[in-house]
């Protein structure tokens, strides 16, 4: 009797082990499928023209998405210029000065804000910037993206600064350095790897954002002309082209997806490498 029970228990144990492993395998099937399709279909679209030409009107074959590639880079760089410094400063506040109720509130808002749908940010930037300036602009798109990356940068900065041992701060202060010098050249420096990693991951995250760009940067069929004009981007082109009925545009959409995924992945890998290069010293 007891032997049968043990047999059943062992069977359950194995079954659950297999199920857990199976779940992991099943979840990785779509990943494999997506990457396979993006690479296979994307490669057929990539050629010199894809990177150097403007999109052609419907019905004309050929053309490229050069403007969207540059546009995405401009948007991401501009967003980083706004989002990263503010995020790092806010992170410093939370880690170095923030003990009171305000800091708790900001911390909580950061966590909660990472869960707010990005399309909401799009609506709000439309209401505050696009309507006020009476034009869709790269700047509005960049601000929307910056808002999305802000909480990510803030929280990683705070966490990385907290890893820096207090003895370092005390040593610096004891040597007569001011508080801000201590923070900037001692604390921030030893946490640099982690902060760069966090910031790059935030960059990778916003590079693929589409929804907030739909009504801020909008889209454009021309080369970027400045931050105050509408601007093309890869995500918006993928969306627009994928939802048209034209074969040629589908091909370009896959090409754009390959370029976008490559950009995101390269940034993520760079983030990991930065963490390894600068990160080691800070933690030990």
């Amino acid at each position, binding site marked *: 009797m007891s032997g049968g029970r043990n047999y059943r228990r062992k069977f359950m144990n194995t079954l659950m082990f297999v199920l*857990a492993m199976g779940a992991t395998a099943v979840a990785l099937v779509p*990943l494999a499928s997506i990457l396979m399709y993006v690479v296979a279909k994307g490669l057929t679209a990539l050629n010199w023209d894809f990177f150097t030409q403007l999109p052609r009107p419907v019905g004309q074959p050929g053309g490229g998405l050069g403007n969207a590639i540059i546009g995405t880079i401009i948007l991401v760089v501009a967003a980083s210029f706004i989002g990263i410094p503010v995020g790092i400063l806010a992170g*410093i506040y939370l880690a170095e000065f923030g003990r009171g109720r305000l800091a708790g509130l900001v911390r909580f808002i950061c966590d909660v804000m990472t*869960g707010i749908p990005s399309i909401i940010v799009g609506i709000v930037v439309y209401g505050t910037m696009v309507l006020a300036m009476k034009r869709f602009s790269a700047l509005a798109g960049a601000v929307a993206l910056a808002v999305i990356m802000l909480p990510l940068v803030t929280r990683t900065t705070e966490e990385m600064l907290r890893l820096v041992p207090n003895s370092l701060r005390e040593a610096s202060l004891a040597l007569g350095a001011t508080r801000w010098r201590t923070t900037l050249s001692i604390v921030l420096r030893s946490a640099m790897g982690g902060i760069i990693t966090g910031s790059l991951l935030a960059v990778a995250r916003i590079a693929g954002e589409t929804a907030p760009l739909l009504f801020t940067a909008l889209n454009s069929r021309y080369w970027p002309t400045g931050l105050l004009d509408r601007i093309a981007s890869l995500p918006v082109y993928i969306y627009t082209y994928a939802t048209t009925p034209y074969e040629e545009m589908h091909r370009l959409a*896959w090409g754009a997806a390959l370029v976008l995924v490559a950009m995101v992945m390269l940034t993520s890998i760079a983030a990991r490498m930065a963490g390894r290069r600068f990160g080691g010293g800070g933690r030990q």
Partner: protein
Amino acid sequence: MPNHKNRQVGDGFFHGLTLLAALVMLGVVIIIALQLVKGSQPAYARFGLGFIMGSRWDPVHGQFGSLPLIYGTIVSSLIALLIAVPLSLGIAVYLAELAPSRLRGPVSFLVELLAAIPSVVYGLWGIFVLVPWIRTTVEPLLHRFLGWLPFFQGNFYGFGMLAAGVILAIMIIPTIAAVSREVLLAVPNTQREAMLALGATRWETIKMAVLPYGRSGLLGAVILGLGRAVGETMAVTMVIGNRPQISPSVFELGQTIASIIANEFSEAFDDLHLAALVMAGLVLFTVTLLLNVVARLLVWRTARIAGGAGKE
């Protein structure tokens, strides 16, 4: 002495600067809330709370009831949870409890990779790979075996609630799995050791000592995933079919709050339509905010209990 004063000024300035940055965060959330409330005023003035109960969304005739959108959001998210929760928990259990240590890193990395793929790329893949598969394989099979249920009747479009639910499931798996794994890792080892010492199998240990201990954190992980599913926009917009209607069948086309905003916002030329979309956005904002707050509190509580217990 003047040097001393300079130091204080410098430190004060630095403190002020970082405080300002922190206040920017606060300001952003306040601006978001105010802007949504302000922008939705015209729609609120016209429809009041009937906006939420109204079942007809018809821009041409100026009728804006958001029930079909809310329905679509709930149903697509529920389908997503139904698929994603068991899979994610399986992944979390595998990664935290069962996997050999040299596999943990690479497998976690692959699961995280799922989160790194942009939503619009999911949508592209959805249109050209997932939707045809659902149309030719999944829907006919479901109809054949479960067709007597009202959920699995109707035409096989491929596009629709089912496709949206499946794609959402794939997208929220990394979130739920990662947070669940953290929660499981926070369960102190003494819990497991005690069970194992009593002669329990691995699975019995997980079932009786690990999962109950992390219950509220795991619930938090699921709610966090739900929050993401509710707000996810692009992939859903590309595969759900974009028709605001209420139908019991998951084969039918649908519309979510997020997808209707993506779809109609830039084409909404009359003010009432625009205000209605902003009001839909306000509903979405409120719901995701609440879900996130609840989820964070649950996850925090587990981490704190586990953290506190671990120290003793």
